[in-house]
C-alpha cells in the first residue's frame, strides 16, 4: 500500500503510460475477441495465419501483465514485440518513447519515499544531453539491424543466381531450409558481433582502470584458445562428412559379399545395426571435442581409418589383380563409390528435411 498520495499518483501515472503505449492493440483485441471466441477451433487457424493479429493479442496480454505488476521487463518484451504488428517489421517509436518515460517515472517512484520535500540538482547541460543520447542509440541500433537484415536478405537471394548447371547444388542452395539456416546463423553471428562491439565501445567511452586491470589480470579471460567459429555447425557437417565414407567402406565394400546372399529384410537389419554401431564407436572416440587431450586417441583413430581405407581399396581390385592389389590399391574405384554415396546421402537429407518441414508447415 503506498504511503502517500503523491506516490500513488506517480504509480497510477506510470501505469497509464503503459496503457497509452498499447492502447491500439488492446482495443483491437477487445473488439475482435468475442467474434473469435464464437467461432471455436476455426478461429485458431485464422489466428495463426495472421501473425500480426496474434502478436497484437500477445502484446495486450503482456500489457495487462505489465499494468498489474509494473515490471519493466514485461513492458520491454511488449515493446520489442510491437515491432511486428505491422506487416513488415517497423520501428515502434511511440512505444519506445513511452518506455523511456516509464523508466524515468519508475526510477522516481522507487526512490521517492513520500512526504519528503527534496530537490534534485542537475546541470542544465546534463538535462539537454539526456534527450538526444537515447534517440541516437535507437537510431544507431535501427540502422545496424536494417543493414544486417539487408545483408542477410541479399545473401539468401543471391543463392538463386547460382548457375543451374549443377541441379543437385541448385536444389540444395535454393531450398527453404538452407535459407532458414543461413538467416538464423547470420542473425546469431550478427548478435554476437554487435554485443562485442557494444562492449568495446562502452570501454572506450567510459574507461575504468579497475575493470580494465581486473579483465587484463584474469588469465582465463585473456588466454583464450582459438575456437573455430560456428563450431556446432562444423561438428554436424563433419559428422555427416566423416560417417559417410566409413559407412560406405564397411557396408558397400567390406560386407557386400556377406550381404549379397541375404534377404532384403536381413540386409536392412544388418546395415542399420552397423550404422548405429559405427555412430556409437565414433561418438565414444569423440576426437573433436578435445583435440588437446586426446592426441593418442586421435592418432589411433586416424591410423585405424587409414587401414580401413587401404583394406577396402585392396579388396575392390583384388578380383582383377590378385596379390598385386596389395601394392596398387584401387583408390580411384573406392572414391567413385564414396562420391556416389555422398551425393545420395546429401540429396536424401535435403529431400527428407524439405518434405518434413513442408508437412509441418514451417515452409510453404
Amino acid at each position, binding site marked *: 500500500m503506498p504511503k502517500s498520495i503523491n506516490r500513488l499518483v506517480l504509480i497510477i501515472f506510470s501505469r497509464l503510460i503503459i496503457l497509452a503505449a498499447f492502447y491500439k492493440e488492446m482495443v483491437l483485441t477487445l473488439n475482435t475477441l468475442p467474434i473469435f471466441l464464437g467461432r471455436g477451433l476455426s478461429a485458431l487457424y485464422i489466428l495463426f495465419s495472421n501473425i500480426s493479429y496474434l502478436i497484437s493479442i500477445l502484446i495486450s496480454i503482456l500489457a495487462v501483465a505489465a499494468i498489474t505488476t509494473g515490471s519493466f521487463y514485461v513492458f520491454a518484451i511488449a515493446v520489442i514485440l510491437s515491432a511486428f504488428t505491422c506487416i513488415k517489421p517497423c520501428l515502434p517509436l511511440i512505444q519506445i518513447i513511452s518506455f523511456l518515460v516509464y523508466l524515468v517515472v519508475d526510477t522516481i517512484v522507487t526512490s521517492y519515499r513520500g512526504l519528503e520535500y527534496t530537490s534534485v540538482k542537475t546541470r542544465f547541460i546534463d538535462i539537454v544531453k539526456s534527450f538526444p543520447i537515447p534517440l541516437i542509440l535507437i537510431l544507431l541500433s535501427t540502422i545496424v539491424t536494417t543493414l544486417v537484415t539487408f545483408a542477410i536478405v541479399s*545473401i539468401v537471394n*543471391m*543463392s538463386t*543466381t*547460382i*548457375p543451374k*548447371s*549443377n541441379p543437385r*547444388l541448385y536444389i540444395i*542452395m535454393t531450398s527453404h531450409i538452407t535459407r532458414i539456416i543461413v538467416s538464423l546463423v547470420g542473425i546469431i*553471428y550478427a548478435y554476437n*558481433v554487435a554485443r*562485442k*562491439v557494444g*562492449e*568495446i565501445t562502452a*570501454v*572506450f567511452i567510459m*574507461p*575504468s*582502470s579497475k*575493470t*580494465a*586491470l581486473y*579483465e*587484463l589480470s584474469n588469465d582465463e579471460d*585473456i588466454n*583464450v584458445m*582459438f575456437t*573455430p*567459429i*560456428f563450431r556446432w555447425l562444423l561438428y554436424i557437417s563433419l559428422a555427416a562428412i566423416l560417417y559417410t565414407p566409413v559407412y560406405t567402406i564397411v557396408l558397400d565394400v567390406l560386407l557386400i559379399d556377406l550381404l549379397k546372399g541375404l534377404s532384403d529384410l536381413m540386409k536392412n537389419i544388418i546395415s542399420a545395426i552397423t550404422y548405429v554401431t559405427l555412430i556409437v564407436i565414433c561418438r565414444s572416440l569423440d576426437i573433436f571435442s578435445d583435440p588437446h587431450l586426446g592426441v593418442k586417441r586421435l592418432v589411433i583413430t586416424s591410423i585405424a581409418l587409414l587401414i580401413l581405407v587401404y583394406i577396402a581399396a585392396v579388396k575392390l581390385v583384388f578380383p582383377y589383380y590378385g596379390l598385386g592389389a596389395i601394392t596398387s590399391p584401387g583408390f580411384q574405384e573406392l572414391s567413385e563409390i564414396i562420391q556416389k554415396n555422398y551425393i545420395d546421402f546429401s540429396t536424401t537429407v535435403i529431400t527428407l528435411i524439405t518434405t518434413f518441414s513442408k508437412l509441418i508447415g514451417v515452409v510453404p
Partner: protein
Amino acid sequence: MSKLVILRKSLLYLLPAISITILALSVYLLLASVGYMERGFIGTSLLSALIGFALLSASLYIMRLAAYVYAAEKTASG
C-alpha cells in the same frame, strides 16, 4: 624510459593497428566470398567466408584487449 614502459606505450597503438588490419582482411575475404558465390564456386566461397568470420572474431577480440589496455593507461595516467 625502460623497455617495459616503451612496450606498454606502444601496445596502446599497436593493438588497434593489428585489429584494424585483421578487420580489413576479414572484410576483404567476406566480400571475396560473395564474389565466389556469384560465380558458383560454392566450396571456395564457404571456405573464404569461414576464414573471414574467424578473422572478424579475432579482430574483435584484439580490439577488446586494446580497449582494456587503453582504459588502464588512460585512468592510470590521468
